[in-house]
């Protein structure tokens, strides 16, 4: 089992250097221009930072942005660039908002699952599916726009809470659909009917029998959820004026801070790889069938 975990983790983590190199070489080959005839004339400061930060022409140029980062030097221009510590602070802000969003998503899922189990009728799931469909079909920035007049620039972590709420809609809807489908399927199984006929209440049946069988499917959805949270952070932070990692990435792309784009893209890939490896390990711990398959 340990060998399999190691093999799968290595496969996931191998993407990180690939993403780092791919994003570096894509940015390094960009024909950023300083010619006056060009519509997007760039400042000499930006061009200088481009050559300096990417180590163009050097044999180990791809490592230059990382070396600068670890040395605490500024990547990009003086006004729009960022240092390593600033980047880490912004990243921790985004991760904090993401963690709260995940908690909200689990709350929506639990509430909807509660309704399905409590009513235990197929008809109860139709309006829930409709709610989930609207949530899944609404772009993050649309929900953020709804809250922006009330939450933007209010302080006291109100914008952060609003961003977490907005980010939780899509993952919450996805998780709710997944859990509802899985719970409904499990509730129809013989072992559940046996447990109920032996006198266990709905909640005891749900907790002791249904939830352990639904958990593996939930863990499989962790990576798409993390991806959705990261993707949603760009728009949510931009609309609500949060100066965290999502906003940093968008501004770096808009202002051609290419070294920042390289580092930020690689950091995103690292986070998702870490989440994927963790989910895989949790799955092996939580699901005895996965352990049996891996040792077979």
């Amino acid at each position, binding site marked *: 089992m340990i060998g399999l975990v190691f093999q799968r983790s290595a496969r996931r983590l191998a993407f990180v250097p*690939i993403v780092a190199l791919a994003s570096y070489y894509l940015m390094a080959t*960009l024909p950023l221009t300083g010619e006056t005839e060009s519509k997007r004339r760039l400042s000499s400061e930006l061009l200088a930072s481009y050559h300096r930060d990417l180590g163009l022409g050097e044999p180990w140029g791809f490592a230059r942005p990382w070396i600068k980062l670890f040395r605490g030097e500024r990547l990009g221009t003086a006004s729009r660039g960022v240092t390593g510590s600033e980047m880490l602070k912004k990243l921790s802000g985004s991760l904090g908002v993401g963690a709260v969003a995940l908690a909200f998503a689990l709350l929506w899922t639990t509430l909807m699952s509660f309704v399905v189990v409590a009513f235990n009728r197929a008809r109860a799931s139709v309006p829930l599916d409709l709610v989930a469909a609207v949530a899944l*079909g609404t772009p*993050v920035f*649309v929900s953020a726009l709804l809250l922006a007049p009330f939450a933007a620039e209010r302080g006291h972590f109100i914008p952060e809470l609003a961003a977490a709420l907005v980010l939780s809609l899509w993952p919450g809807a996805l998780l709710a659909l997944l859990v509802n489908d899985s719970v409904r399927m499990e509730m129809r199984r013989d072992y559940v009917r046996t447990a109920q006929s032996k006198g266990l209440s709905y909640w005891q049946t749900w907790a002791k029998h249904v939830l352990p069988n639904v958990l593996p499917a939930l863990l499989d959805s962790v990576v798409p959820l993390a991806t959705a949270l990261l993707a949603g952070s760009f728009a949510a932070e931009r609309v609500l004026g949060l100066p965290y990692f999502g906003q940093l990435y968008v501004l770096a792309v808009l202002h051609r801070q290419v070294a920042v784009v390289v580092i930020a893209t690689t950091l995103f890939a690292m986070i998702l790889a870490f989440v994927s490896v963790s989910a895989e390990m949790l799955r092996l711990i939580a699901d005895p069938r996965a352990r049996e398959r891996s040792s077979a």
Partner: protein
Amino acid sequence: MSIAPRERSLLLGGISLSALWGLSYSLSVLSPGLLHHHCLFGLDATWPDRSVCELAFGGLWVSLTIGVAAGLLATVVGATIAVLARRAGSVVESGMLRLCDAFFALPDVLVLMVLQLAAQNLQDVYPAFKVAPMILMIISLSLVGWAAPARMIRNRIATVEEEDFVRAARALGAGWTHVLVAHVWPVLRAYVAAIFLSRVPAAILAESTVSFLGIARVEPMSLGRYLGASFGNLLYPGGARMVLPAWFLLVAIVFITWTTSRRVLARAE
């Protein structure tokens, strides 16, 4: 003649979207005066010579066109790669699967932003590579969106190839191409159609997000780009009238495409 439930869902969704597209295109391109003079939401603050209806309703056909074209192109590219990889087998096939995993390693929106940045710079320096912003967006979305269809179609082909009728055809001497065209494709086509439909809302959402952020400047203006340019008006009294129509239309088209694709996919599986 009764219509099967899957075809019914497809028909309803298709008719709704086509009607919206046709209405939006005809009103905004063929007779824009109608939207300009009879708009309940008044003139836009950022473009005072145009009404809110012209901009919002006019963006609907652009967003739908981008979504459908990108979804179709991504599905075709993904299906072609899946078939070729399956035909080649072993190293090529597992290489394709690893490549798909690499594409899943990052969010679509992020890769789309980087591709737009690269493409815009390329066009600035080499005007020969200049393409219309809408075409550029469709190509970018397809480059980002091919991996999911490729993986799903490859897995489905692998499953269908294990069926008895395919084994029987092979035992009778049918070549790979004949098996694919005569036996696998009839089983696969509903699934491929469902995958195409599932890519449409994903493409519309990704394009609208990137346009909203101001990274892509799709012309004619899409719903996402209009929302991105006008959302600041929400902070002012009466600003909601400029944002609500585009908002509602975007949610409506994504909702219709998503529910249609979900129903068709559930019935195709």
